């Protein structure tokens, strides 16, 4: 091992790198095939080969989607991803929702909790198949792929971390093709400070210096350690990352990610084959949208047009703080940078501002800047606005940003977009809350939530304090949902007091694109967005047109994805 035969100069070459990737995939494959489902972690190297009924098809996919959403939600709630608390919360929620197969796969081993070997194998198969089903559902768009990859990565990492220390992991990694080598003692001494200062444990504490260097350090081209590079958690010298053996997990993850990403591109490429099977398409099409609730992209019939003249009032009364802030910047500074324009522009589109009114709004404010006249505006910004409305370029119907997207967005100097509860410092946020007339006890409540990274709950509290204690049904998940709720409350259509029982929605998109809403009752508000689906619902219109007992997965596997 230790790649003794490889000279440094060849590491950088694509040929070698691809060979490593292939070897890794092959190795994983071999391990899996030696005895299918003996490994506690699957890297999903090969597509499953099994018979599955259409009902099961949806049940499998849905169960996995729920797990991913639980992780997604926990990422927003706890600042420290992969911490013990983070993991425990996820486990608790998966158990609470009783997602049986994943409880077994993720948190049990044969013999504990009465899990038999057969059950374990069945659960691992469930994990395997459901992963591939979601690949189908999320391969379609760049945004879906990103979402899916990032959460599958979290799930994978969580499982892998559970393994650290186990000899199997190290053996696996340090197999012949692993493109790293052990750092010699002399070199380790030479870069002692640099290495020690680069390896951080949670909370920014360093490991005791002497302790850190007693363990093995591996040198590997930085491309294999991208996740460590991103977090600046590794010492880099001349293109090589000095990886602490505790962090080898990260290296496997980087390889897994590229494998997953390639897999998804392959599905996308072969999607036309899948599309020929109506039964699959009925489950897979809009899968994400159907199970996350409302999609604010498509204009609903009941949305009446909003004119530019109404915006001054609406923005102060019914815009969520993220949009209100952006709106205020436009009014005050007559300018907004690209991603701010997108965040606000798509929101305006979805509350029903038609394109000509949107142009009127942007033009009216932007041209107040002395250096921007009407012609300059048309040149510089008009295309952009028309693009948002799908009138230019590839004419895509862009959907407005969800809270998730707003919270996760990259905010740099000069930018005003993002979530004010996350991307503002205390002083700025306080000023905004004062401006919105949130009383001091409300301020305290909101600031406390922000401190704990509960940005969406803080937003919900903001809603309550600015809407006479009326609340948002099921928590704030989307700026446009906030807006609609606000309109309903202010027009007297809705009267849900904070203490009332919260209703949750399941939205079903019919094949013709129309939506049907079902209302379910649940008593726990905080977990609502995760459990907004219920596969056991009777009379699901999706079940009826499909044939039972068809071998869909078998078919899929044969399509080479």
């Amino acid at each position, binding site marked *: 091992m230790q790649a003794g035969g490889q000279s440094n*100069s060849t590491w*950088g*070459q*694509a040929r070698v*790198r691809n060979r490593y990737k292939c070897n890794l995939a092959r190795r994983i494959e071999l391990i899996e095939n030696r005895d299918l489902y003996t490994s506690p972690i699957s890297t999903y190297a090969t597509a499953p080969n099994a018979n599955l009924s259409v009902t099961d098809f949806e049940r499998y996919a849905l169960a996995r989607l729920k797990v991913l959403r639980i992780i997604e939600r926990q990422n927003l709630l706890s600042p420290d991803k992969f911490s013990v608390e983070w993991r425990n919360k996820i486990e608790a929620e998966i158990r609470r929702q009783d997602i049986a197969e994943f409880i077994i796969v993720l948190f049990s081993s044969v013999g504990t909790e009465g899990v038999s070997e057969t059950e374990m194998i069945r659960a691992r198969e469930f994990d395997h198949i459901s992963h591939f089903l979601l690949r189908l559902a999320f391969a379609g768009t760049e945004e879906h792929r990103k979402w899916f990859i990032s959460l599958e990565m979290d799930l994978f990492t969580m499982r892998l971390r559970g393994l650290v220390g186990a000899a199997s992991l190290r053996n696996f990694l340090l197999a012949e093709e692993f493109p790293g080598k052990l750092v010699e003692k002399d070199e380790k001494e030479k870069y002692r*400070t*640099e290495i*020690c*200062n*680069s390896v*951080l444990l949670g909370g*920014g*504490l*360093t490991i005791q210096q002497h302790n850190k260097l007693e363990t093995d350090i591996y040198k590997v*081209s*930085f*491309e294999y350690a*991208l*996740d460590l*590079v*991103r*977090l*600046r958690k590794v*010492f*880099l*010298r*001349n*293109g*090589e990352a000095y990886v602490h053996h505790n962090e080898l997990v990260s290296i496997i993850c980087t390889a897994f*990610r*590229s494998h997953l*990403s390639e897999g998804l591109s392959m599905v*996308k*490429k072969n999607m036309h084959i899948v599309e020929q099977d109506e039964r699959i398409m009925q489950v897979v099409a809009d899968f994400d949208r159907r199970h996350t609730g409302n999609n604010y992209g498509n204009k609903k019939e009941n949305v009446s047009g909003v004119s530019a003249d109404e915006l001054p009032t609406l923005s102060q009364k019914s815009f969520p703080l993220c949009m209100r*802030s952006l709106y205020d*910047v436009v009014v005050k500074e007559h300018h907004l940078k690209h991603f701010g324009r997108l965040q606000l522009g798509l929101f305006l589109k979805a509350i029903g501002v038609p394109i000509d009114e949107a142009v009127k709004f942007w033009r009216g404010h932007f041209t107040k800047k002395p250096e921007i006249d009407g012609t300059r505006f048309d*040149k510089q910004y008009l295309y952009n606005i028309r693009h948002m409305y799908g009138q230019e370029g590839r004419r895509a119907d862009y959907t407005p940003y969800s809270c998730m997207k707003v919270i996760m967005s*990259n*905010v*740099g*100097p*000069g*930018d*005003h*977009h*993002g979530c*004010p509860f996350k*991307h*503002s*410092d205390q*002083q*700025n*946020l306080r000023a905004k809350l004062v401006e919105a007339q949130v009383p001091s006890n409300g301020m305290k409540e909101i600031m406390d939530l922000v401190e704990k990274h509960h940005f969406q709950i803080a937003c919900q509290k903001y809603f309550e304090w600015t809407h006479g204690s009326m609340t948002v049904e099921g928590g704030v998940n989307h700026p446009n949902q906030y807006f609609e709720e606000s309109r309903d409350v202010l027009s007297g259509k809705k009267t849900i007091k904070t203490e009332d029982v919260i209703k949750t929605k399941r939205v079903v998109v019919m094949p013709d694109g129309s939506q049907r809403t079902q209302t379910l009752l649940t008593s726990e508000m905080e977990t609502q967005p995760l459990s907004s689906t219920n596969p056991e619902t009777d009379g699901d219109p999706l079940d009826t047109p499909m044939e039972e007992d068809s071998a869909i997965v078998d078919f899929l596997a044969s399509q080479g994805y």
Partner: protein
Amino acid sequence: MGEYDPTLLPDLLKPYYDRLFPTDLMYRWLSYGSADYFSRREFSFTLMGDVYIRYQSFGSNEEFGKELRRRNPEKIDIGAVYTQKPKSRDSSSGFQPVEKEFVVDIDLTDYDDVRTCCSGAKVCEKCWKFLAIAVKILDAALRDDFGFKHLLWVYSGRRGVHCWISDTIARQLDSHGRGAVIEYLSVIKGGENQAKKVKIPNPETLHPFLQRSVDIIDEMFKEICDDDQNIFNTEANFNILPLDVKMAARNPASRYEDVFNYINDNKKEKKTLRQLHPELLLQFCYPRLDVNVSKGINHLLKSPFCIHPKTGQVCVPFDPKYVDKFKTTDVPSITQLMDEIGEHDKAKESEVNVLTWKKTKMAPYMKIFNDFIKKLEKDRETRDKSDNNKELF
């Protein structure tokens, strides 16, 4: 010598592309030894009247030059190398970007929170010092940390600098990889609603990259932030400081000294102050990077040797070693260049065969570009040789 007049640009561009634009060198750079590679590269042109055309591609050096002379673009953008020739792409999903130089883009407009000398598009010698620090920090990190060797630094022609990292590994990074590298290099985080944009985890154990960056800044910090910019005279900047520091620096006339004296005097006892010192250095002087330009493999960036339509200046390469000495006012404008050629031809009619750029102020910049390409080619040669040897054994 004539002043640059933007309305004359169309007339100047034609002779510029005819006689000065280094088509051959551009081809040698962007082909990396493969005509096929060059032919799959996207170029975009901005033509007169703001007509923007994407997905141009050229089969050969000759075709590239011919099209430039025919179209006389106001601006050329360089995009990615695709799976197919962009010009004859089909609409299938098989058309994907596969490679591109890793690029870094820094723009002085992003320094408006710390610049007091100028704002917006204006740039003076004091502003350039921010860019000089940026270049030093990034150049060191890209070379020493990431091991990149082929860096082409260019001045954008008005208020920014770009870096084209052309090593094979850099070109082959996917967007995830690009994201990781640029995040490593990004220290300033947060938008207009976050006054304090730098947070370091532990002052006792600064990551070597941060330590080096702080050291580079430290050399010029007082000159820039006190002498040039009087940084704490801006209330927004002063307000970043924690209360105890603000209290110690109540006298507006001596804020800078008071702040740093207070920090130095109390560093030993207070961890927050040990942390604050590097944080302030980074916040005020660390390069502001346009992350999105670097992340996207298909993101377009203005080509070197374009003419900036507002200033008429050429987008020229420079040597990062001498970035302190670089003066934007020395960079020739297209008007100056045309005058120079005219004068030279008049004075020395016999020297018609002299390469045109040698007659002009372009010469030193051209040499930097040429050296960069030669080094690339030499590297490629040695690698090919060692590859061949391997096959033999």
